[in-house]
């Protein structure tokens, strides 16, 4: 009797573990391949069938990245960082201000305006890219990183405003009143008292914006045409079309690793905020 209940108890457990581990292999194997392929010597990278792991680790591919294409990959890393960091900073500042305004300082029409901002979720930015291209062109911002930064900010703002408004709205009004009674001005009440409590929402907003901008491909492909100004995802197409049609998959995967690994590290470090923001956003 006892053994049967034991089996009934352990069998589903074992099955669950087996299933989880199998999924782990499926999920992690491509990521492992990315790293292992990027560390192979050029001769080994084209072996058929492919080797399971690099026999002899070499950083040649990463060094070669530095002088592939017109300006080398590190310039593109800089471009991506500038655009992603710039858009993140702008989004966080604008979304915090607007989120506070919508949550705490209601005025006539503020409800309608907030609804209008939320309504932009319904329209995909792919559908307005054509006029956006013309508008940037007429503003002299086409083919420029600041132009791309502004476009990214625009498309991350609604979600940021939504997250920040909810963070501020969740705080009891008494905190702010207490700060005002203690002699703080409105701005000081906001920056000193309310902002620290809203920090998790702020980190979520920043993380989402950074990830979205770092990985964005479509707008970057269209709005920036000068190779020296490409961001990383678009640069990968340059790596792919390199060298007279014969593709160096080692260098290619090194490029992929440079694009993907920062995201993975950032996610592992700050996943609490990422997940919280995601769920808050989804259940709007």
């Amino acid at each position, binding site marked *: 009797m006892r053994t049967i209940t034991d089996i009934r108890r352990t069998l589903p457990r074992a099955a669950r573990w087996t299933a989880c581990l199998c*999924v*782990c292999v499926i*999920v992690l194997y491509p990521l492992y391949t990315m790293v292992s392929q990027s560390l192979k010597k050029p001769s080994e990278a084209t072996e058929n069938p492919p080797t399971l792991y690099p026999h002899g680790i070499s950083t040649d591919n990463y060094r070669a990245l530095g002088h592939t294409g017109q300006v080398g990959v590190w310039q593109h890393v800089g471009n991506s960082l500038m655009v992603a960091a710039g858009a993140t900073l702008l989004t966080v500042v604008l979304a915090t201000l607007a989120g506070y305004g*919508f949550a705490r*300082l209601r005025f006539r029409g503020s409800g309608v305006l907030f609804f209008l901002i939320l309504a932009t979720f319904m329209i995909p930015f792919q*559908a307005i890219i054509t006029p956006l291209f013309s508008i940037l062109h007429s503003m002299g911002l086409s083919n420029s990183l600041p132009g791309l930064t502004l476009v990214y900010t625009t498309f991350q703002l609604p979600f940021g405003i939504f997250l920040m408004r909810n963070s501020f709205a969740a705080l009891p009004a008494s905190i702010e009143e207490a700060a005002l009674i203690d002699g703080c*001005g409105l701005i000081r009440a906001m920056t000193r008292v309310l902002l620290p409590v809203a920090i998790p929402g702020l980190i979520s907003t920043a993380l989402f914006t950074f990830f979205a901008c770092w990985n964005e491909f479509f707008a970057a492909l269209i709005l920036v045409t000068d190779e020296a100004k490409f961001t990383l995802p678009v640069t990968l197409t340059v790596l792919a079309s390199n060298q007279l049609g014969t593709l160096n998959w080692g260098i290619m995967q090194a490029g992929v690793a440079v694009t993907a690994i920062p*995201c*993975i590290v950032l996610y592992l470090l700050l996943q609490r905020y990422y997940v919280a923001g995601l769920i808050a956003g989804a259940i709007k």
Partner: protein
Amino acid sequence: MTKTTSAAVTPSPPALAAPPRPRGPGLSLRRRRQLMGVAMVSPALAVVTVFFLVPLVMTFWMSLNDWPLLGEHRYVGLANYRRAMHDVEWLHAIRFTLGYTALITPILLLAGLGLALLVHRRGRAARTFQTIFFLPVVIGFAAAAFLWLYLAQPGLGPLSDLAVRLGLGNQDTNWFATATSGLLVVTAMVVWKVTGMQMLLLLSGLQSIPGELVEAARVDGAGRWKTFIHITLPLLRPTLALVLVFSVAGSLLAFDQFYIMTAGGPANGTITAVYQIYRTSFINFELGYGAALSAMLMVALAAVSAAQMLLLRNTDNS
């Protein structure tokens, strides 16, 4: 009265320090707060107006024009829309996009639900698995597409090597040689990359179901399967609707994966709707026609969003 007080208060911020009282200064504080609200909201509104609302309105205006990249545009009425109705390439792109959506949506939903049930546990092990399963979500579509492009490379990639070992072809089998097999590789990549997201959303849905409900059903003698069908699944409906809409909207807007992995080929067999807009506006530079196609896409996605609201509202009421 209010005006004079606020004018008197404006130049000297310390006056704000006055504690809010029901009369007099209280009114001026309220007015100040409203003005402050307008001031804080305006920068964000300005950005959204210039880079979102203006292009939005312009999409419809451009779609009524013949609008080349250089030179004058010319009003043509609904000609662009009439052209789209008979455009073989556009109609094919729509059919392909709908087919791709129909193919991938059930896979994503089932895989996401499966993973969510698998890791719906307390404890460190379950949390670790959640983290691992979510990893592919955070890397970009471009990086994931180039990674899988290598994995499926004939004679080179581990995935095609695996296919050879499983007897699914020989070393020269090119998975990108036909539109159907190319679509399958892209679908595999997207499932790998996106399922973690579906899992996380469904998991949050599962966690919001009160444990007592499930326990009560079990105590009443319902088996695991019955509990799942009659208790868990109905309560999960709002989340399922949400995940469904995410997946449909994402698939209807697919571009990166096909641009990178199949380049729309072979023989333009894997061109999606967004891809066709890209080619119209930025390869052929027919911006007016591209805008018309965009407007059609926009209407389709607005319909999906509206369906989401209806789905969610219905589930709220029941």
